[in-house]
């Protein structure tokens, strides 16, 4: 407990940075999508629905453009400070107040650095690699944006019926960029790093997709917004806890607390959700276990996918200097760096939406209603001019966003914690672990899940 002061500082830093980041993004989006049309209509009496629609069309692009760089800056700082705490150090605390601006300084430094293309490198491929690496993490995140914002009107147009499939497809592209970077650098370390990343991605994509597929089977849809909406209503509804197998349990608890829907009683609910009694109960438990395994498998596969310790073999520093980005400097390196942290954020968001209920409050509503003051506070907020006149926020969206932020950064923090703890795998062990353990396990889990699902009434 020698680090309490540092932990407190990190907490303050996170809150300040997150507030600034999300306020900036939301102010920009609100200004473009609502504020500007409102201003035009009320002050200049210029009311053109085409213009409003056009402005709204650009809101998602704007939010991504504002959010990704600021967020990456915050995550780098968070990672460095958190790792410092895990390692009984202080971390960067000199630039700006208590080191808040450290990553800004780093970014400026990287932008001003000379951009070197090594002799013998394939210049076109060398330049293209960071772009191909970074672009999918933005494009792929687009349907996610609709899901994490609880289908806000701004982002509804981004949602796809095949959302998660599209996201996974996009997240498979960066591997090509790593091979490109490794090959084009004209450096043997880079080459080995690029080849390793290809081997790793092929091995770990399968368990990752199988884990997501089991969630989709439980949910009965690929639409991320629908998957997020299904899980609303407390933590027992989340896919992490059985993919909807525990909804009946949740209802029964609600009924026993006198907050059930209508005149339902415990046995009725039990009969509806668990039609085969004992067998259904066993099936529900099996589903919970399967989904927890899927969750762990997804996190493992995702760590491998985004090259974080213990799967950071493509850039294994003690072996390959810096792997595929050995020869990169300046802006190109900055893009690699940015994309890595964006990928981490995207992966955490996918986990949040697919397993942890998106913007859902973990406390079930029937308990929340019993806490005095909450509903009155929400209605007071709704009455206030911020909501009613300017449409700046609405309470449901606000709380959903707060929960999303909390969950996403909790997973990011977990990834940092893992990075601060584990050593690195060796490449042959990594591949063996992927093919001999994870893939068979994922197939077994999927098979068991498909059978167990028949005995319980779930989301889908």
């Amino acid at each position: 407990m020698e680090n309490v002061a540092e932990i407190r500082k990190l907490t303050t830093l996170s809150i300040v940075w997150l507030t600034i980041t999300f306020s900036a993004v939301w102010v920009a989006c609100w200004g473009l999508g609502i504020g500007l049309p409102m201003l035009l209509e009320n002050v200049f009496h210029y009311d053109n629905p085409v213009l409003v629609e056009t402005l709204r069309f650009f809101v998602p692009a704007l939010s991504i453009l504002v959010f990704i760089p600021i967020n990456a800056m915050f995550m780098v700082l968070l990672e460095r400070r958190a790792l410092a705490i895990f390692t009984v150090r202080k971390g960067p605390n000199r630039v700006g107040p208590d080191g808040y601006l450290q990553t800004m300084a780093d970014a400026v430094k990287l932008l001003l650095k000379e951009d070197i293309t090594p002799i013998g490198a394939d210049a076109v491929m060398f330049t293209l690699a960071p772009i191909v690496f970074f672009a999918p993490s933005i494009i792929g995140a687009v349907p996610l944006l609709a899901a994490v914002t609880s289908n806000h009107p701004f982002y509804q147009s981004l949602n796809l019926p095949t959302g998660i499939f599209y996201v996974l497809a996009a997240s498979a592209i960066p591997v090509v960029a790593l091979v490109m970077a490794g090959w084009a650098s004209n450096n043997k370390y880079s080459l080995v790093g690029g080849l390793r990343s290809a081997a790793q991605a092929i091995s770990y994509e399968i368990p990752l997709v199988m884990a997501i597929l089991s969630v989709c089977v439980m949910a009965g849809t690929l639409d991320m917004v629908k998957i997020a909406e299904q899980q609303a209503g407390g933590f027992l509804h989340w896919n992490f806890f059985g993919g909807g197998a525990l909804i009946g349990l949740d209802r029964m608890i609600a009924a026993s607390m006198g907050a059930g829907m209508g005149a339902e009683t415990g046995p009725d609910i039990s009969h509806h959700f668990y039609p085969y009694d004992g067998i259904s109960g066993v099936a529900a438990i099996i589903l919970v276990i399967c989904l927890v395994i899927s969750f762990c498998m997804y996190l493992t596969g995702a760590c491998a996918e985004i090259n974080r310790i213990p799967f950071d073999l493509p850039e294994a520093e003690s072996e390959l200097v810096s792997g595929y980005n050995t020869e990169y400097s300046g802006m190109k390196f900055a893009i690699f760096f940015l994309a890595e942290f964006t990928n981490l954020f995207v992966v955490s968001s996918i986990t949040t939406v697919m397993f942890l209920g998106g913007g859902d409050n973990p406390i079930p509503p029937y308990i929340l209603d019993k806490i005095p003051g909450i509903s009155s506070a929400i209605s007071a907020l709704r009455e206030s001019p911020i909501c009613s006149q300017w449409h700046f926020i609405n309470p449901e969206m606000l709380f959903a966003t707060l929960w999303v932020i909390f969950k996403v950064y909790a997973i990011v923090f977990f990834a940092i914690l893992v990075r601060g703890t584990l050593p690195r795998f060796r490449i042959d062990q990594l591949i063996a672990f992927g093919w001999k353990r994870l893939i068979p396990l994922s197939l077994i889990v999927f098979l068991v899940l498909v059978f167990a699902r028949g005995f319980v009434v779930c989301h889908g």
Partner: protein
Amino acid sequence: MALELSRIEDLKTDEMIINMGPQHPATHGVLRLILTLDGEVVKHVEPVLGHLHRAQEWQGQNRTWFQYQALIDRVDYLSGMFTSWAMARACEQLDGTVVPKRAEYLRVMLSEMNRITSHLLWLGTYLIDLGAMFGFPFYPFREREKLFDLFEEVAGQRMMFNYIRIGGVLRDPKPEWFAQLKKFTDEFPDRIDEYEAIVTQNPIFLDRTKGVGILNKQLAMDYGVTGPCIRSSGVELDLRKTKPYSVYPELDFKTIVTDHDGDTWDRYMARILEMRESNKIIQQCMAQIPDGDIIVKKQTAGLRVKAGEGFAAVESPRGIIGCYVTSTGGEKPFRFRWRNPSFCNLSILPELLVGSPISDIMAIFGSIDIILPDVDR
């Protein structure tokens, strides 16, 4: 099937030659390894030495005894106490000096402290070699800093101590210093337990170290490997026991021989256990240390050693340091010759590396625990 297999043989690709170092981030200084790789498998290794050659032996002939005494700490900067000690013992042999008991106890105490700091640094950097870039590696540094504070108080320096002098030791520590050291030694075993809890049975760590870089008894003896490396291969070679010097015979400690396979995990374990033993030695020294003089030879710029030839060896954290000295009785030494453990231990590297993947290079190289200034002198 047979046809396909022969096809795979035909697919054999070119070997790739990689220069690992001297600027590689993980070669612990400036070692250069010329690796011939087939895919990720090492086919041939050639260590290239000399990037850090500082002519330490030659400098001995061009410095006075007093100056060289201060210089020799730099040879192995992680365990400077031991090179000083080897030199002091060789020179005392010529002089026929009998070092006071209290000085001998202080030498043992501070050397064992230095052994702990050296092993702690090894532990941290070894985990960095294995890819635990952040987190754990810094914890050993926490304890190391505490010991350095103690060194600073008694020797005036944190790493280049120049504490063991010809004829005794430099300074007598204050009673408060002993109290601080006692506090450290009391809590240190718990700290090692902490390290062991996170590392020793960590599945990834076991995967990376078990059965990797196996050094068998015969090979180790053939190459003149010393220190924890040979002891972890099952050879009981510890000068403190096999050829006791100073006050080691009066102390009760074990020679750590981990007799399993001689793999990197054994070398790790040997060092962990050695730290525990060193801690015990320090505790015993504190209990047994007598009062009395600490130095019998006047430390001035005109320090001289009687004519003749002398040799002394001490057991350093890396192995046996031997110091051979020839004196003509003049103000400068006639010749110094050092036997450095890192050099001999490094010579085993090509034998261990051939046939292992790139990732294991650092796992094996780190486990040998060499230090480049000690290799090149």
